């Protein structure tokens, strides 16, 4: 029983969700209270996670179906903090569309709970449970602006395609169960017989399911539509948080049970990575909607993160984690800018709405420029280091093809980031946007921009935090 404290974060979170739900039902007009309480819950959960589990080396619970180690603790804290930031900056947006309701924070919290279970999972069934919990909440979130047809369309599309991918994933799980006799990752690792082709099939199906969740090419088709249709604050959540959990499962799933089959899955990951990097870079060029463009750019970034996982080494895995953390930071800044482009209760999300931003709003344009250069991976900004670590581990494994294609696609990607900068700085100005953004929105933009800007002064800190992950 003493070990139950290790899952205390999850227990606390689920109890809080139920409490908030009941509170929301019985108290009228309680959306503000619930929003604030949710923020407190997220922070408290993060603190509990930090206190209870960070020092733990590796503990398995509940018949080895849940694992608590440094990777899971770190990723949970990242998830919780990222969600915290998403929640605090989305309230203004929701109020504008009159969808500032109690369901929003509660759905986000339940999705976070699902992600935490995913991150903890050491068993296919637990993993699937967490996955579905987070997905179900996300379907509803996508349709949250239900009066807009695009939002409903986004949710429906996401639901149908995601259900399909869940089906594939389950099929993969059942294949693996059938040929190894267990759903537990460690037992699978021991029972593994690499001559069985069916296991490879199982891995492929599960990878397809995971690639769908993390929106890697060729399973990315839902992403642009869903990102465009969903309310912007939900899109922000989509582009950041679920990717952390999905990446963790990618790492856990490939590195714990199937590290011996690296020859089988490495090719798949290299393909996913190259396809995502190239496609994300090329397809983004033609976009005119900023949210769609961000969708393609996030597809590209997922490609870089997967390149690290594809190496099959501790270094590579760590570099992916660093990548995703820095990516979250950059995306947070990017969306803070998007949420600031508001005029008389209307949000602007076309690329040409950026034009002349540097004249009307010099500070906003400057921050956005720094973020975009960082996304493009230009030194000395944080985005460069993220790519640098990934390619360092990739080249260590002599995967030169992957490295060179990846770096060349950064050049292609640089084109569309530059185009945004060009529109902001070189084009004629338009009408001004409102400037009465909430304090939190300004905070998150300043916070992310400054971190991106000064990251190069203290690069070792993040590495030190991440380098304690050790699962091989």
């Amino acid at each position, binding site marked *: 029983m003493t070990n139950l404290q290790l899952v205390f974060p999850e227990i606390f979170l689920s109890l809080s969700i139920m409490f908030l739900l009941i509170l929301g039902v019985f108290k009228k007009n309680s959306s503000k209270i619930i929003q604030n309480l949710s923020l407190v819950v997220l922070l408290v959960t993060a603190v509990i996670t930090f206190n209870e589990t960070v020092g733990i080396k590796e503990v398995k619970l509940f018949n080895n179906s849940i694992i608590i180690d440094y990777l899971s603790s770190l990723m949970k804290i990242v998830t919780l903090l990222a969600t915290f930031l998403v929640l605090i900056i989305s309230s203004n947006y929701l109020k504008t569309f009159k969808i500032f309701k109690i369901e929003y924070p509660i759905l986000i919290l339940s999705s976070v709970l699902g992600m935490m279970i995913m991150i903890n999972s050491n068993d296919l069934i637990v993993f699937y449970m967490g996955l579905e919990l987070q997905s179900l909440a996300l379907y509803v979130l996508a349709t949250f602006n239900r009066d807009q047809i695009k939002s409903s369309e986004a949710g429906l599309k996401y639901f149908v395609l995601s259900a399909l991918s869940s089906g594939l994933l389950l099929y993969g799980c059942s294949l693996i169960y059938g040929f190894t006799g267990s759903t537990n990752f460690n037992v699978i690792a021991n029972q593994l017989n690499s001559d069985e082709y069916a296991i490879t099939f199982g891995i492929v199906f599960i990878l397809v399911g995971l690639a769908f969740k993390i929106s890697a090419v060729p399973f990315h088709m839902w992403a642009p539509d869903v990102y465009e249709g969903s309310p912007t604050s939900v899109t922000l959540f989509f582009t950041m948080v679920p990717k952390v959990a999905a990446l963790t499962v990618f790492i856990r799933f490939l590195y714990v049970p199937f590290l011996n089959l690296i020859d089988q899955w490495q090719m798949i990951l290299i393909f996913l990575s190259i396809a995502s990097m190239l496609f994300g870079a090329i397809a983004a060029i033609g976009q005119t909607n900023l949210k769609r463009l961000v969708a393609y750019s996030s597809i590209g970034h997922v490609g870089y993160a997967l390149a690290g996982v594809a190496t099959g080494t501790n270094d590579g895995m760590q570099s992916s984690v660093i990548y995703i953390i820095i990516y979250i930071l950059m995306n947070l800044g990017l969306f803070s800018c998007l949420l600031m482009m508001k005029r008389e209760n209307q949000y602007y999300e076309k690329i040409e709405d950026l034009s002349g931003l540097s004249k009307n709003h010099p500070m906003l344009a400057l921050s956005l420029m720094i973020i975009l250069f960082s996304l493009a991976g230009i030194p000395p900004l944080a985005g460069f280091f993220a790519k640098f670590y990934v390619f360092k581990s990739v080249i260590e494994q002599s995967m030169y093809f992957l490295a*060179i294609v990846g770096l060349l696609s950064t050049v292609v990607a640089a084109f569309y980031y530059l185009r945004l900068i*060009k529109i902001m700085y*070189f084009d004629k100005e338009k009408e001004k946007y409102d400037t009465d953004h909430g304090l939190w929105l300004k905070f998150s933009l300043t916070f992310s921009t400054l971190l991106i800007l000064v990251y190069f002064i203290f690069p070792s800190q993040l590495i030190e935090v991440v380098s304690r992950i050790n699962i091989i």
Partner: protein
Amino acid sequence: MNFPILSSLILLPTVGAFFLFFTRSNKQNNFTVKYVALFTSFVNFLLSIYLWILFDHTTSEFQFVEQRTWIEDFINYKVGVDGISILFILLTTFITPLCILSVNNSIKERLSEFLIAVLIMESFMIGVFCSLDLVIFYLFFEAGLIPMFLIIGIWGGARRVYSAFKFFLYTLLGSVLMLVAIITIYWLTGTTDVIELYSLGIEAKYQNLLWLAFFSSFAVKTPMWPVHTWLPDAHVEAPTAGSVLLAAILLKMAGYGFIRFSLGLFPVASEVFTPLIYTLSVIAIIFTSFIALMQEDMKKLIAYSSVAHMGYVTLGIFTIQQQGIEGSIIQMISHGLVSAALFLCVGVVYDRMHSRLIDTYGGIVSIIPKYSVLFMLFTLAALGLPGTSGFVGEFLILMGAFKDNFLVAVIASIGVIIGAAYMLWLYKRVIFGKLINNDLKKMIDLNRSESIILTSLAIPTLFFGFYPDPLINTIEVSISDLIETYNFRLASKI
């Protein structure tokens, strides 16, 4: 050496830029903004002179070395100078204040942002020339793209967007391969520290590919034929101060990189690829000289002449002769002064007439005599007349080339003649001839700041033309040591 003089050189302009950032720019305090920038860059220049005085030119060791842990067990922040790099630092700190002085007439709006970009650019460029770690070098090398992109894009001419994109993407494309090579070197040797790499050496079998990766980056930046096409576009569209920075300093990064890294780290591969460099250099010299002959736009003509001049530089570097490399460095310094001056000269008439076409002008010698004299001086320096710094560089390079490869040297010498042809023809068409265009009569001669800028460029051009000893003394030992190590490592195949 306790005072971190190199880090101060790198940081000072950024600190100045930081101050500018908090000074709101409007019509009234444009002066404040300008003087803060000018003061910063001038202090930086004095600091670099002090560095030169302290510099001990009897040794080829790296001096003023500073080292700090940056990423644990991986990269150290390490800077230092030797005879090869110190002159480029001086060039950078000398040109930047002149650039800032020249914005009076050309930059009308967003002055403080422009000056911030220039100052940050200066930081990055000094960083490139004194970094002693490959990753740090790459960082500075690439980071320079951001301010330059903005300088061309925001304050440039009509086709500035196209030019800014071309500049950025070309250079980025060249550089990413260098990044692959740097990481590979790290995995081969376990370090990115240049001094350590000099003593460790890199196995011969890897050198060719690594050399090519570095080459792809430097060739674009130099620029060598056939990847030179971004340069004329960038030059033509950039504002005067931007062109000056680009021609005077940015192009030198690549020449410096060739000496420091291609020769220093990959002697075996350098020997293999010398014919390639020779061919490309000779094509650059002859081919772009002919192109320059046909230009109707003054800035474009000077841009093409830059490509030709950089052709001499690469030729000189890969002769691996004492004279050749010395000549290349002097040629780079001289080209830095002369091309900067020529772009400023074009800027002077452009600010008055708003045309860069040669046809617009003609017969202005009697209207603006002071200008015509200075312009002539720089024209002659560009074509390498004895008594100007251009001659010293070109002569040494050709001498080195004759020692190494007769045919190449002969062809390159022909380039000198074509060079004289296009520069003199340009001068004749702009300054002499009949005064047809009546608008030209309203032109006023150089104002005070323009005179200061052009004179301060003319002095070193002439001084080093007659008396190149200070330059040669500074670089001599480092170069002879470089060549010695090169030949030694070539013989032992590492």
